[in-house]
C-alpha cells in the first residue's frame, strides 16, 4: 500500500522534473518547484509510515511551511523586480 503510494509520488516527481527542465516560461518553473516541494512533503510523510516512524510527519509539515515561504519570495521577486527595497509609492512605515 505505502509502496504503491511512494511509487506513484516518484512518478509524479519525474513528471514535475520534466516540466521544470523544459518549461518554456518562468511561471512553469515556479509552479514546478512549488509542486516539487509538495511532492517532497508527500514522500517524506509516506516514507515515515513505510518505515513505521510516523514522527516524520512533523518534518514534512515544516517542509510545507518552508516551501510556502520560498514561493512567496519568488513571486514577490517577480512582482516588484527585487526583494528588499521599498517602493517609492510606499510610505516608509515600520
Amino acid at each position, binding site marked *: 500500500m505505502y509502496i504503491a503510494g511512494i511509487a506513484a509520488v516518484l512518478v509524479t516527481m519525474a513528471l514535475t522534473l520534466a516540466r521544470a527542465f523544459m518549461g518554456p516560461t518562468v511561471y512553469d518553473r515556479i509552479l514546478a518547484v512549488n509542486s516539487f516541494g509538495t511532492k517532497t512533503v508527500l514522500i517524506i510523510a509516506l516514507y515515515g509510515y513505510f518505515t513505521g516512524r510516523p514522527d516524520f510527519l512533523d*518534518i514534512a509539515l515544516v517542509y510545507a511551511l518552508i516551501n510556502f515561504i520560498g514561493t512567496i519570495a519568488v513571486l514577490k521577486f517577480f512582482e516588484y523586480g527585487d526583494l528588499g527595497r521599498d517602493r517609492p509609492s510606499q510610505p516608509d512605515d515600520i
Partner: protein
Amino acid sequence: MDIGSFLINAILLVFLAATAIAVARLQNLFAGAMLFGIYSLLSAGVFVVLDAVDVAFTEAAVGAGIATILMLSTIALTGIKHESIPIRPLRSLLLVAVVGAALIYGTFDMPRFGDAEAPAHQHVALRYLQQSGDEIGIPNVVTSVLASYRGYDTLGEVAVIFTAGIGVLCLLGGSRRRRTDPADKS
C-alpha cells in the same frame, strides 16, 4: 538498509544527477535558481531516507529556503542572463573525474552504513548513553552532550551566531537610516 529504501534512494539520486546536469546546461539564471531549489529538496529527501533527519532539516531550510532567496536577490542586482565564456570541458571533466575517484577510494576505509562496530559507536557514545543520566541528570542525551559535555564548544558557537546577528542588524539598520534621509528624495 532494506531493498525498498535502497530503491527510493537510487531513484532520488538519479533525479538529483539529472537536476544537476540541467542546471549546468541552462543559460537562464532565474531558471537555474529555481532548479537549485528542486536540487535542495531532492537532497533533503535523500538525507531523510538515509536517516539523517536533522541534516535534511537544515538542507531544506537553508538550501531550498534561504539560498534560493539569496540567489534571487543577487539576480535582482546583477541581471538574469550570463555571458557564455569559452571553457575547456575536457580538462574540467578530467579534474572532476580524478577528484571523484579519489573520494570514492576514500570511502573504502569507512565503516559500513549502520555498523555497530564503527569507531563512532565505540569511543564515548556508550558512556553518554549509559551514564549521562547519572552524571548530568538530564533525561535527553542529546541535550546533555550539547549543553554539558561539549559546553565550551556550544558557547563558542553561540558567540559566533551572536556576532553574525549583530553584523546583520548593523547592516540592515544602516541602510534603512540612509533611505529615510530627506536629501535622498530630491
